[in-house]
């Protein structure tokens, strides 16, 4: 296709992405370098009939509003926001490393810093839920492949539900069940014979619940893709493996799994991207006291009741995007190699 025709066809789509994805990135970079104006303070002398006069410091609301109106970005702060306590916390970490006794202790102290707390949960969620969800999906696909054909349609229908459902709705539905007054929560109390047991009150249980929820919504996608892959497994390879004496497990290990590997790469890429942005479950499960993610920190900064923290949100956003790029890097390199090889001949 000639360059000119290509340009006209791609123009609307490229314009949309440029204006609403690329430009906001620039806006994030700029915002992260500024910080909100502090409140304008004024000294007022207040006198009471018997107490005499004292100097008081008050917030000059009018002047503050005027200043914020005039310079909505705030004042220039350089990399200050990145290095402060709510983000990379370089000063705090240097202090922790200097004064702590032992490695475990310094790790525990670093975990108290909000950015590292969010980062740790996000990474744990991404790298636990992605493989476990795929494994679960693979098992379901193997099992569904064996059941009578007439059951397959309804089974696929029900299996799609957790994936298709709005994440916030899915997490609320589960949250109401595992709530200490809900059916699963009560069941858990009955099983452990501990009437005070509450998932929300325990850090490890909250994490486990969020991971299980993640697997619940992630498994169907892997299931559908792997199930479709199973339909195209070459039958003659399977048969020759049988003739050569491969047992059932060996056939799965040496014929089926290698056949599914390209699909698994695709699924893991999509799931890594989706799991890394985990936000809605934390809101749905009301879990922010026990677990926060990078996305949730940004959401929280933008929600802040008394003034949205744009600089803080922008700094976290930029750090998050850097992590996303690191995460994607192996894929990008591989795609690039494939493409160069294709271009070569």
């Amino acid at each position, binding site marked *: 296709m000639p360059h000119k025709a290509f340009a006209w066809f791609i123009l609307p*789509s490229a314009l949309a*992405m440029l204006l609403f994805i690329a430009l906001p990135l620039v806006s994030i970079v700029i915002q992260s370098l500024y910080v909100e104006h502090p409140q304008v303070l004024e000294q007022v002398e207040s006198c009471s009939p018997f107490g005499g006069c004292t100097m008081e410091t008050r917030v000059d609301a009018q002047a503050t509003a005027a200043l914020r109106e005039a310079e909505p970005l705030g004042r220039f702060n350089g990399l200050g926001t990145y290095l402060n306590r709510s983000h990379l916390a370089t000063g705090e970490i240097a202090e922790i490393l200097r004064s702590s006794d032992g490695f475990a202790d310094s790790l525990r102290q670093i975990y108290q810093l909000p950015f590292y707390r969010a980062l740790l949960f996000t990474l744990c969620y991404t790298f636990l839920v992605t493989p476990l969800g795929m494994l679960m999906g693979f098992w379901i696909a193997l099992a569904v492949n064996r059941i009578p054909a007439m059951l397959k349609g309804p089974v696929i229908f029900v299996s*799609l539900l957790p994936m*298709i459902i709005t994440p916030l*709705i899915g997490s609320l539905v589960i949250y109401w069940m595992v709530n200490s007054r809900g059916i699963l929560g009560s069941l858990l109390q009955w099983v452990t014979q501990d009437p005070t047991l509450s998932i929300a009150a325990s850090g490890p249980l909250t994490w486990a619940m969020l991971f299980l929820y993640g697997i619940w919504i992630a498994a*169907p996608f892997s299931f559908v893709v792997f199930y479709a892959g199973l339909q195209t497994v070459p039958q003659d390879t399977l048969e020759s493996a049988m003739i050569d004496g491969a047992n059932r497990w060996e056939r799965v290990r040496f014929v089926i799994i290698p056949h599914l590997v390209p699909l698994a790469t695709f699924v893991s890429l999509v799931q890594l991207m989706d799991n890394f942005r985990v936000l809605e479950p934390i809101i749905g499960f009301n879990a922010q006291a026990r677990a926060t993610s990078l996305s949730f920190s940004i959401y929280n900064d*933008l929600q802040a009741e008394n003034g949205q923290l744009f600089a803080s949100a922008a700094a976290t956003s930029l750090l*998050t995007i850097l992590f996303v790029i690191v995460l994607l890097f192996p894929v*990008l390199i591989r795609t690039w190699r494939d493409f160069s090889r294709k271009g070569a001949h």
Partner: protein
Amino acid sequence: MSSTPSRPNHTLTIIATLFVLVWLVVAGFPFLWTTWGSFKVEADFFSRADWTNALSGVNTIRQTGGAFTLDGYEGAWIQNEFWRAGLNTAMVTVVVTLLSLVLGTLGGYALARSGYRYAFWILIIALVFRAMPHITLVSGYLVPFFELNIWGTLPTAIIVLVAINQPFTLWMLHSFFLSIPKDLDESAMVDGCTRFQAFREVIVPVMWPGIITTGLFSFLLAYNDFAVTAMLLRQENQTMIPKIASFLGSIESEGNVMFAVSSVVSATVPLFLLVMFFQRQIVGGLTAGAVKG
């Protein structure tokens, strides 16, 4: 070799069937339970004393006179004007789906037919855009949108959702277009069509299955979005999902958690219907992406 592999292994089939049954309960029961419970009062849905209350509806009968009640739905849809959020959602999802498809088919077609290196780079950039958490972009929108005074309105949210949808739509339609032979549009152009006529009269008609499948996923993306609509719409323009989120803060404290439950159930109904009618296309779309992408 202990057993003849060609003989169907009944034990394994039984184990597989049992496993599938367990999975069906895990996947489906939460929705069944919540739907059932949405017709009860709070004391039954959250029955600390005895879970069978939720089945028999003891408190529902005592409070309302019947075993099922529409109180939750009435409170959400009428009292709290959930119908307004429903209308907004309908508007946003329909427009976003249509616009995404128009932009996506044009762009996807160009990417599939151009052999130049820059087409590859556009796809890679789209992949990186697809990977960025939506909330990171939202933090970039707010200040400019406040300054331009376009924050809070439905058109703004719609355009943003279309743009955020583009990377995915481009990838998916691009791979569908690749499966249509080049000869088709080239012969149309030999016959005297312009490039755009060939695209509209020859390619789009054979692309309908791909367009419908991509449209389903665009619909889902717009319908399921929380980050964009929650942050970019003002209260009266809210769609269903942010409305439900705002129920959580304001209503739970007043003891009307059943409003949230019934609106959650209401919001699952369109998704349920979607899967029911378009199961084949959804499954096909997921696997097409996997096989070709």
